[in-house]
């Protein structure tokens, strides 16, 4: 069975999908990724689909699942490198990949994750400034 490699760049995990996704490959990838996020404490996951000619509802659902898993583990997921033809097909099919952030290329994706992290840190700083009681701050963190 083919396995999708997961690369670590700084605090980001890069998953470049180069093979046709089967059920097994997808499940394996989800398991591997969850383990790696926990092991490395990564804060961002970049899924590169430049090599994919076809993104059907199956791959779409897999991306959504990975995004949800990563979110639970406090990592931001960004799908990068979607081809124009793929985007058009998805629109025609009515699949909008809700809840998944996208970027044009890996570089932009890394910027996006960095920006999201900055926002978080901003919030942390604001919370620190907010007051010593920390009541509202905890609430904010919980709701995020």
């Amino acid at each position, binding site marked *: 069975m083919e396995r999708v490699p997961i690369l670590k760049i700084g605090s980001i995990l890069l998953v470049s999908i180069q093979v046709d996704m089967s059920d097994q490959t997808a499940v394996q990838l989800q398991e591997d990724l969850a383990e790696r996020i926990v092991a490395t404490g990564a804060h961002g996951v970049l899924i590169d689909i430049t090599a994919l000619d076809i993104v059907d509802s199956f791959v779409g659902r897999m991306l959504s699942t990975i995004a949800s898993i990563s979110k639970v583990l406090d990592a931001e997921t960004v799908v990068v490198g979607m081809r124009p033809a793929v985007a058009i097909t998805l629109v025609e099919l009515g699949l*909008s990949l809700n809840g998944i952030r996208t*970027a044009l290329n890996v570089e932009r994706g890394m910027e996006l994750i960095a920006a999201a992290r*900055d926002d978080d840190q901003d919030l942390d700083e604001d919370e620190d400034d907010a007051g010593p009681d920390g009541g509202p701050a905890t609430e904010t963190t919980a709701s995020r």
Partner: protein
Amino acid sequence: MALTAEQSGRLAGLLREHGERITLRWTEIVAAQMRGRLSHAELLRQVQDLHRIMIAFGDQGLVDLADEGGGELRAELAELSRGRARQGLSATETAISVFALKDVLLETLEVAGGTEALRDYVAYSALIDQMGLFTFESYVRTRESLIADQAEQLLELSTPVVKLWEGVVAVPLVGTLDSARAQVVMERLLQTLVDTGSPYAIIDITGVPAVDTQVAQHILKTVVAARLMGADCIISGIRPQIAQTIVALGIEFGDIATKASLADALRHVLRSTGVEMGRRARRGQ
């Protein structure tokens, strides 16, 4: 009444016997129709070619233009009508090049007279009618391919994607947006986003005369596709009338930013990138 092999042979003989006179008279009739748009020498050359090939056709005793041996004649006729179509001549002017032969043959056969000659003439006419129809079909085919080429060129000309700023591209849409054009615009825009790595795109609809639900649907699809790829789209150039139409039709642009002018859209994009930079600068302090 269809042509027989014997008659076909007789036609070749007739054409050969009166060769000089027939080609000259034939050219004359065609030239009268063309009103000087094609030179006499050129017409004569075409007529002579056709004349020569028709003799060969008759000598083989062929009776139908669609016959296997009629390839040369068909090719010549197709070539003739292609030339006429490209020169912008009308269908009548093209068909007359073939049908003029009827008049010439009638003049030639009248001299002999008699029922036999009449019978022959009717049979020859059948062949010439076939040739005329074939010419006309080739003519139409050429014209259609010309129109198709032009439509394609128009499509390419009318959908430029321009770079406005670092990371900002714009598509100024001009003219009616039908499904085919919307598809081209969408593909072109998305490809440019990938090629230039621009995270912002502005779709300017100043030049779109009317926005109905279908056009709005096309624009929305493009925006959603661009979002899927990780780029943000802004719609600009909405004229007052169009704004009223959009509201009257109940078209919802949702959370897609819309601006009145291209300048506003560019300012919006620059501000949204600028604000981020500003915030970072403050953090650095």
